């Protein structure tokens, strides 16, 4: 707590001195989202809301300082706020970096700790519907440095969880302290370890965590240059003694996290393989790899699996074969098994993608995909998604893209006939280089879990249709604007490896970004 308080004071002092430093180079980025419409049934249809996030950074030689100011207002005047959510001061040279205030960092692959944000992703807190930028920053002190083959990182402070709007100010809880040390070995190999001590918010409970990792390429070590096979493995434990640490126990009763990954690159062939085994490792401030493919296509992006590090093991394999001048074939196989509440559940997915592209600036390119699987965590016993997208280049730097997708799913029920439903999606967009784009999207679902509660008394599931138009434009060199009008489907969405719930919305939304 004291570390965070000192860090806050130093960061605020540095920011306060910012105007004095007239020679500082200042960079600003602002994201504003204005909405007119409603998300929930009980809201008025003409609700208006305005979210703004201003990021200011200044650099003066080797010193940098900055802040983030967020505000959210709405016509109901409830749960509004205007608050500085981040501030920092940092000094860095070629070998050392020290930062006080808000910071992001990653220890190992995130098994024990990861502080991060997903830029430009604005969430609405369930219940209160106040919006906020998704950020799980640390508030404290970070020092890291390198000397020859050795690298070390030390951190202390309070983690943020990114689950609530800062209506009463930034939310941080508990205390974290520790770091990472690693050494680089010949031929690109690296070995290292992490250690963390976590104290809960009331100071009544303390945990110790640690992990060890190796990162090497056996083919490179053997001097076989024709292929590449990088391997990474990390094993983490919680509250174990020094003797227990070396046993690498994987049992159900021992809190642990094990992650391993490898790539094989051989000419036009590429293979990625990952393995996970997480038990009782949902810590709140960590973010182990989920080993579920993140898809760019809309229906697939929402049909994903959210990791529960409390109990999960599985693998992901992805193979790709490319033919220059023609395109590529990608196959992905993912499986996650878990036992939440003592029940054995499985998520499984087999994805095939065929991409046709003759190369840069080809007149025509297309992608076809099919994805078959099941998601017992989400009460889906069978799921098929297939679709594709095609882009045609037109004269005057214009392009037109058509996207089609369909999903058929069968649910899981304890008694009676399991429900089946389908989702359909059609997207059409036209873009012109340097100008912008206009897109239309139509989506229909018969998913019983999304049915309008007013109509749920009828045994027949009524289809929900979502139609929307989006216009995006670049306004000069400094502004980008996106205007959305229509009905947006709520539910799960994933960006940059992080999944979150999106509130449904009906109305108009203007998103404006400015940077200087």
């Amino acid at each position, binding site marked *: 707590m004291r570390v965070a308080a000192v860090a806050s004071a130093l960061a605020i002092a540095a920011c306060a001195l910012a105007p004095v430093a007239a020679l500082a180079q200042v960079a600003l980025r602002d*994201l504003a989202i204005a909405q007119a419409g409603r998300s929930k049934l009980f809201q008025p249809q003409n609700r208006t809301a305005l979210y703004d996030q201003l990021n200011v950074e200044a650099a003066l030689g080797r010193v940098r300082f900055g802040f983030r100011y967020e505000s959210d207002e709405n016509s109901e005047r409830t749960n509004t706020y205007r608050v500085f959510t981040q501030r920092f001061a940092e000094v860095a040279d070629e070998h050392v970096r020290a930062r006080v205030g808000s910071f992001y960092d990653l220890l190992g692959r995130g098994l024990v700790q990861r502080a991060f944000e997903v830029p430009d992703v604005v969430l609405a807190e369930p219940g209160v519907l106040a919006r906020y930028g998704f950020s799980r920053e640390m508030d404290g002190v970070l020092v890291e440095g390198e000397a020859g083959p050795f690298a070390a990182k030390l951190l202390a402070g309070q983690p943020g969880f990114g689950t609530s709007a800062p209506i009463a100010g930034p939310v941080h809880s508990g205390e974290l302290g520790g770091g990472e040390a690693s050494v680089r070995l010949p031929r690109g190999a690296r070995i290292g370890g992490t250690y963390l001590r976590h104290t809960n918010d009331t100071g009544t409970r303390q945990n110790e965590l640690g992990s060890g990792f190796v990162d090497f390429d056996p083919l490179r070590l053997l001097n076989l240059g024709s292929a590449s096979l990088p391997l990474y493995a990390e094993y983490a434990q919680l509250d174990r003694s020094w003797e227990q640490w070396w046993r690498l126990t994987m049992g159900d009763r021992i809190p642990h996290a094990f992650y391993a990954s490898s790539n094989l690159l051989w000419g036009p062939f*590429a293979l990625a*393989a990952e393995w996970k085994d997480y038990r009782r490792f949902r810590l709140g401030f960590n973010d182990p790899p989920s080993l579920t493919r993140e898809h760019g296509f809309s229906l697939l992006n929402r049909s994903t699996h959210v990791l529960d590090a409390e109990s999960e093991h599985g693998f992901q394999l*992805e193979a790709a074969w*490319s033919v220059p001048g023609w395109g590529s074939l990608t196959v992905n196989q993912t499986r996650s098994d878990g036992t939440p509440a003592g029940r054995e559940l499985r998520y499984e997915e087999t994805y095939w993608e065929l991409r046709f592209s003759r190369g840069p600036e080809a007149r025509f390119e297309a992608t076809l995909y099919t994805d078959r699987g099941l998601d017992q965590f989400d009460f889906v016993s069978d799921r098929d998604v297939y679709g594709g997208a095609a882009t045609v280049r037109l004269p005057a730097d214009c392009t037109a893209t058509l996207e089609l997708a369909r999903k058929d799913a069968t649910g899981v029920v304890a008694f009676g006939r399991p429900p089946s439903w389908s989702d359909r999606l059609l997207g059409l967009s036209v873009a012109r*280089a*340097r100008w912008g784009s206009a897109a239309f999207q139509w989506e229909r679902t018969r998913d019983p879990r999304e049915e309008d509660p007013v109509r749920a008394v009828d045994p027949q599931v009524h289809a929900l249709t979502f139609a929307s138009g989006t216009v995006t434009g670049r306004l000069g060199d400094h502004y980008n604007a996106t205007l959305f009008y229509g009905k947006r489907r709520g539910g799960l969405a994933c960006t940059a490896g992080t999944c979150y719930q999106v509130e449904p919305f009906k109305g108009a939304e203007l998103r404006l970004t400015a940077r*200087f």
Partner: protein
Amino acid sequence: MIGSIALLALHLTARPAHGAPALALERARAPEFRARTVTGEALSLAKLLERGPVLLDFWATWCRPCLAELPELEAIGRKYRASGLTVVGVSEDGPRNFARVRPFASKLGLTFPIVLDEDGRIQQLYQVGALPTTVLIDTAGMVVTVREGYRPGESRELEAAVAKLLAPPASEAAPR
């Protein structure tokens, strides 16, 4: 919104010193960063700038516009590599997607260095909010242009900016 309006007002009232429609970012110094590529090589912006201009591209494996943009950047990189241009891909894939970055780059036939921005520090340094974002930096370390998003055909605009940077000064190019 208040911030945007303030920035817009600042922009409209500001007059560039040399009269050109130059803007703050275009005169900004690119923040220095050091990172390791996916193949393990150390890379620093200062070192790269000793060789020539640098084109930074922030992308991710799940980003569909990036899939179309990356081969075009590869073509620009190959064309101007001998003249000193270095294209650097900064992957914003989180730990969830790290393992797929190298195979993805291999699938697209990318030969320029790719950095894993593991803790998001480079993204934060350059205030990147949307993917892809491309930043062109001249040999003096100044940001020439920042482009957020991608639409087919826009790489030609970028290539023109690269060619302009690499062109000899008018005084040297003019016949004597």
